[in-house]
């Protein structure tokens, strides 16, 4: 599978959000690489730990921007965030060490996290840009 890129279609043109989405894309590509080359699964555990940190940072960043500019759909958007956050927190890190299928589960978690999230973000970003967010 070819590495993912933050194409103009996926870019939201709000720098802080795009930067964090880029970090998530890097994690997806790293995970894919580790799977392709059957590398040491410890690297996947490191990615999971980074993903938990990024989840907290990214969702709070977006929610504070939505609140600042009074985005009307904040509640729904936050509940989508909560679904991804719950899955990320609950992911069994220990399984990555001894269950090869867990690596694929991590990859699908990362991919679904990104895809559902970015599509939800598009509308939000349009609203925020109109209000002056950069």
């Amino acid at each position, binding site marked *: 599978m070819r590495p993912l890129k933050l194409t103009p279609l996926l870019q939201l043109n709000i720098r802080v959000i795009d930067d964090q989405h880029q970090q998530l894309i890097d994690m997806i590509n790293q995970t894919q690489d580790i799977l392709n080359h059957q590398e040491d699964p410890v690297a996947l*555990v490191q990615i999971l*730990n980074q993903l938990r940190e990024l989840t907290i940072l990214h969702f*709070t960043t977006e929610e*504070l921007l939505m609140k600042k500019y009074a985005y009307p759909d904040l509640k729904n958007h936050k509940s989508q965030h*909560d679904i991804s956050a719950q899955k990320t927190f609950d992911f*069994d890190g220990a399984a990555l060490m001894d269950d090869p299928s867990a690596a694929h589960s991590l990859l699908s978690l990362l991919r679904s996290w990104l895809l559902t999230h970015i599509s939800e973000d598009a509308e939000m970003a349009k609203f925020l840009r109109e209000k002056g967010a950069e």
Partner: protein
Amino acid sequence: MSNTQAIETFSDTNNLSVFDWVDARHQFLVGTYDRLMVTPDRKQISRCLYLAHQIQNACKHHESGILAALQLNRTPKHQYIKELMAGVLCELLGKKARMTPSSRLLLICASLTQDIAMLDLQDSKLDRQATPLTESQLKFIRKHATTGRSILVKAGVKDALWLNAVEQHHERLDGSGYPNGLKEEDISLGAKVLAIADIYAAMVRPRGDRGIKTPKYAIKEVFLQRGEQLDVTLVKNLIDILGVYPPGAWVKLANGELGVVSASGQDVPFPIVSVVLDNSGQLLPSAQTRDTQIKECSVIDMVDTPFLFNLGAILSSIWPTIPEDKKHGVKGN
């Protein structure tokens, strides 16, 4: 300074392990509660301020050690550890929210006295009750914030920050809290900080009707309450302070070793871990520091406290001791 003076200064100081330091503060708090229940007056209020001052001072240089000891001191004698832990978190959160040292001092006092109106119930019932709360207990609990404020006023507390934080610490941003169903803009900053500190500290301590929750679970739950119930920035600040793996959490590393988080990775997901058991489960002669950014030392997950009797000495050696003035240090009750 002359040598004689240096020796005198040294001899006036005790060096306490972080665990002993927390134990002494806990004992002092128990003594303060006993006195407050009998005679709520200025003397007891001064004891709260004194304890708050000590917490604030110790947090300057021993943040990780104190947080770890509060996480690890979990025997039945530590019945009010929640109030102490919430006090420490209030100091650290207050600092991040740019509250002044004197405001933070009052906020620590609010944390220590937040449940002053239900000490009796906590002490004799809730900590041992295995069944869910009864209707009348719930009614009593819903009144404790207002009653707590009245007790403190009667004892001579005049500071609005302290009184409001106690009265409003169960209010929630969406108006779903009690006693007055206040909304975000009407809740004081102190109460917002105390609410987060209290929820986290309450979850990581055991109670009769529910087991102890791991710090990982508690962090997730607090995070999920952001926005509707709790202030988003303050929740983020709490996680920045504690990390995803907070000090005192037991963790397993990729190389099979077991240890305790000795310091959270500030803003990064890689805490410093002091390994206590080797990969075959044998107790090491002394704790070994591991940088979890190194691949083979990656944190795999949190684990339950291992069942070993002789962990005290090795755990005490992980964090620097805290100097305590012999003349002015806390002397129990």
